[in-house]
């Protein structure tokens, strides 16, 4: 950078401040994008976001998206009177994209939390997502929750699993322990890899994800629950009441026809027939 402050100081400085001010002012003037109405969606198609690596809900195999949510999207394509455009991206961008109107819906396993309900609306839950931890099978030092005290935990950045770690912390403190170091990963496969390598001692995820993991990789073992009730659902922006009703109707139909339970058994190993239709989170 050969930009020298020595020459024509005041003009460059003034210009710099003006452009800084403009940069900050611009978004304020244009404002945030808003949620689309069903009319707009019917015209231009529904834009949904899914995660790129969240087994078994959605992941990519041999170049094609597959998994529980992706199969439901296929069903949705047949049922919906409009086009469905799907964007696959890392988790950290999905909810932010929905809340700012970039995507109409996140068809992913987004856990319902109080904080998220401030800027998002959730559909009926699609599975049971109580948080559990997973450890290396040959790690004999961890046998119950209190053994987790002081150990390093891996979670996904920006996830509800990270957000509810304080619940685990409270559990540990009751027995005189405390939460150890928390490492935030972009996605779970990386966290599991580090668990296998011994860089973290346990990883926290939903029971469904962990059961799938352990079935594929027997070097891991699932431990106990580290949270209370938790449910994942699809997310839409705060004022998308019509879209929310549409998606809830779709989910109810899939449940009634038995397809929902069929997909749950296929991908999770068990069906969850008693899912609530709506859920108010404690956390």
């Amino acid at each position: 950078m050969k930009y020298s402050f020595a020459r024509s100081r005041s003009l460059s400085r003034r210009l710099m401040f003006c452009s800084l001010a403009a940069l900050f002012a611009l978004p304020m003037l244009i404002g945030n994008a808003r949620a689309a109405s069903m009319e707009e969606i019917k015209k231009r198609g529904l834009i949904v976001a899914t995660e790129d690596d969240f087994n078994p809900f959605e992941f990519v195999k041999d170049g094609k998206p597959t998994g529980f949510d992706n199969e439901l999207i296929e069903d949705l394509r047949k049922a919906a009177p409009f086009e469905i455009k799907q964007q696959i991206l890392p988790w950290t961008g999905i909810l932010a994209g929905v809340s700012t109107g970039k995507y109409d819906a996140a068809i992913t396993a987004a856990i319902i939390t109080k904080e998220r309900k401030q800027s998002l609306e959730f559909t009926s839950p699609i599975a049971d997502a109580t948080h559990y931890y997973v450890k290396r099978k040959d790690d004999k030092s961890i046998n119950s929750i209190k053994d987790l005290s002081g150990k390093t935990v891996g979670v996904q950045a920006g996830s509800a699993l990270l957000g509810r770690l304080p619940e685990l912390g409270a559990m540990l403190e009751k027995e005189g322990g405390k939460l150890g170091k928390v490492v935030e990963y972009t996605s779970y496969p990386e966290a599991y890899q580090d668990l296998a390598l011994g860089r973290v001692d346990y990883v926290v995820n939903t029971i469904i994800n962990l059961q799938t993991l352990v079935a594929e990789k027997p070097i891991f073992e699932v431990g106990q629950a580290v949270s209370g009730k938790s449910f994942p659902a699809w997310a839409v922006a705060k004022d998308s009441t019509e879209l929310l009703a549409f998606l809830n109707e779709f989910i109810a139909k899939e449940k009634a026809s038995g397809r929902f339970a069929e997909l749950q058994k296929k991908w999770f190993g068990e069906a969850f027939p008693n899912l609530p239709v709506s859920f108010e989170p404690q956390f």
Partner: protein
Amino acid sequence: MIHDFGIVWSERALLLSGLANTALLSTLSAAAALVLGFLVTPALMSKHRTVSVAAGVFVDGMRCVPFLLFAYIVYYGLPSLGIRLDNWTSGLAALTIYNAAYMAEILRGAWVVQPREPIEAGIAFGFPEIRLFRRIILPPLLLAAGPVIGNQIIQIIKDSAFLTIIALPELTHAASSIQSRHYVPFAAFITAVFLYWGLCLVIEAGVSSIGRVAEERR
């Protein structure tokens, strides 16, 4: 939007710790890379073919591999060979080794254009080796290579942002964490951009002050 910046401000501790990590990581690896570069440069110019070829392979190798891939190899690949480092050490090692190759090239380029007379005079006057290096060779070399080394340091600062991928809590990781929890992407990332800019301005100032010292000496 003001509200968004308010959220970012409330998370300033995380951002500042990310900034501190970035600054610390960059400084340490820059210094280490420079020292390593000093060891590799004579190897590059060595008369023994095996040494110079080996050094050449190292330097060319680092220049042909993307830094992010190299960081992944150090973090996830080395454990397969028995070397397991935590993310901070991996990041530091990857940054250092990668940039040592570039530093070696820079030093070699600066060395080649150094006048030989002062060194010959020093030898004629009987300067012992270490003193010769410290007082006759090193200062002009560093002063001549100063701006290019400064650019490389800025490159190191920017490469450190890649390390967010291996879960290292540096500045971009902090901004990303804030935006993924509060959904304030613009505020979080533009703040990060300005902090990076500020860091680079500091380096720039350092480089120009070295430049001024060089001018005075001349």
